[in-house]
């Protein structure tokens, strides 16, 4: 496994995947948006407000999915000290935080007309807010140290301990009574969502997941290339007292592109 997780191998393998995955993301989200906004029926009780679900549920799924990914990467970086795992965890955090925030905002917008309140402190909503704080805490912690290795150690520990919250978010609606409705999709009796509404939901969930992987690949590639440039800088490759600053920057850019192609 470690053989495939080398930075150079990652750069080589993800380069051809990236354009296809990006195209797939665009197609899935475009189709998903069409079916969620136009090509699906209204709900018998909620009317058009049901369409918020097509953003809310995929965003909630991504919030949990990204967190599990981040915690696994954190564990791998703690156990095997693998730099790529650490980079993946750092790259995942802002994406997961954004999806979690999106889930909380859309949920609030749905709650006002449906429940009659923007926010309540029930187990589901509170545990989801804690998830957002865990992401923010992770991001603050990994960048709080001068030595990045200490930062990633502390951050990975936080991500791992916080993983306890993930099953609490998922099962909060089963373990305690909440204002939030119980699970509609992943549950024992099969989905409680009408098949005509499952299609846009599935498209959006797949689209969001693909989007996450596109952003992950882009962010990891960026970080790997930045590290290479830093290493080259330290090795004195760009040191040339003869060249003026502007030319120096051009050389820097050229080196950057050459690096990316490797």
């Amino acid at each position: 496994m470690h053989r495939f997780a080398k930075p150079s191998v990652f750069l080589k393998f993800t380069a051809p995947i990236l354009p296809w995955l990006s195209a797939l993301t665009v197609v899935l989200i475009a189709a998903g948006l069409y079916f969620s906004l136009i090509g699906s029926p209204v709900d018998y009780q909620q009317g058009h407000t049901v369409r918020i679900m097509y953003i809310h549920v995929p965003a909630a799924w991504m919030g949990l999915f990204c967190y599990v990914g981040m915690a696994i990467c954190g564990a791998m970086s703690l156990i095997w000290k693998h730099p790529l795992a650490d980079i993946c965890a750092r790259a995942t955090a802002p994406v997961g935080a954004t999806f979690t925030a999106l889930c909380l905002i859309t949920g609030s917008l749905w709650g006002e007309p449906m429940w009659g309140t923007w926010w309540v402190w029930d187990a589901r909503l509170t545990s989801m807010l804690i998830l957002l704080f865990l992401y923010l805490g992770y991001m603050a912690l990994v960048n709080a140290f001068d030595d990045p290795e200490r930062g990633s150690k502390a951050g990975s520990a936080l991500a791992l301990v916080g993983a306890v919250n993930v099953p609490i978010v998922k099962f909060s609606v089963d373990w305690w009574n909440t204002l939030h409705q119980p699970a509609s999709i992943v549950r024992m009796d099969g989905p409680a969502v009408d098949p005509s509404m499952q299609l846009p939901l599935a498209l959006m969930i797949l689209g969001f997941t693909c989007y996450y992987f596109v952003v992950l690949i882009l962010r990891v590639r960026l970080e790997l290339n930045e590290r290479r440039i830093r290493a080259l800088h330290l090795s004195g490759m760009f040191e040339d007292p003869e060249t003026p600053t502007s030319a120096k920057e051009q050389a820097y850019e050229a080196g950057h592109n050459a690096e990316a192609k490797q």
Partner: protein
Amino acid sequence: MSLSRAKIRKRQRMYVIGAILLAVGSAAALMLTAFEDSVVFFFSPTEIAEKSPIDPDQRLRIGGLVVEGSVAKQDDGQTIAFVVTDMAESVPVSYRGILPDLFREGQGVVAEGHMNSDGTFVASEVLAKHDENYMPPEVAESLKKSGYWEEIEAKNAEQMRN
């Protein structure tokens, strides 16, 4: 077969992380079980019946289905009275204020307020609880015709009880 020192270290780190996760997980589980009464968002009428008599100064939330035909306006024209049930016990509720759009008979609601000495729950806020079922109006119609609807309502009541 002997492992290299680096491999032993990695294995040790794995065990330590596993042990810490287990400890944190059990601590969280114990804490959440201990504070269950504060973690639950509302009490069902059955729990209210078990806990009664409840101190009128204690603020709490009660959740259940609005009994069909129980919603009535009081003589003052502002107070609304209805009965909340979990199909085992029921509690009468009185409320002055604006009801959410989703409030209707047979629908789940959560009311916040206090228990009166005469056994009526005086609510200061009423929220509608949506169930996990999403369907177009036609499907809802056919479910009502085929009699599956009672099953869904019975299930909702059961969820309120749990």
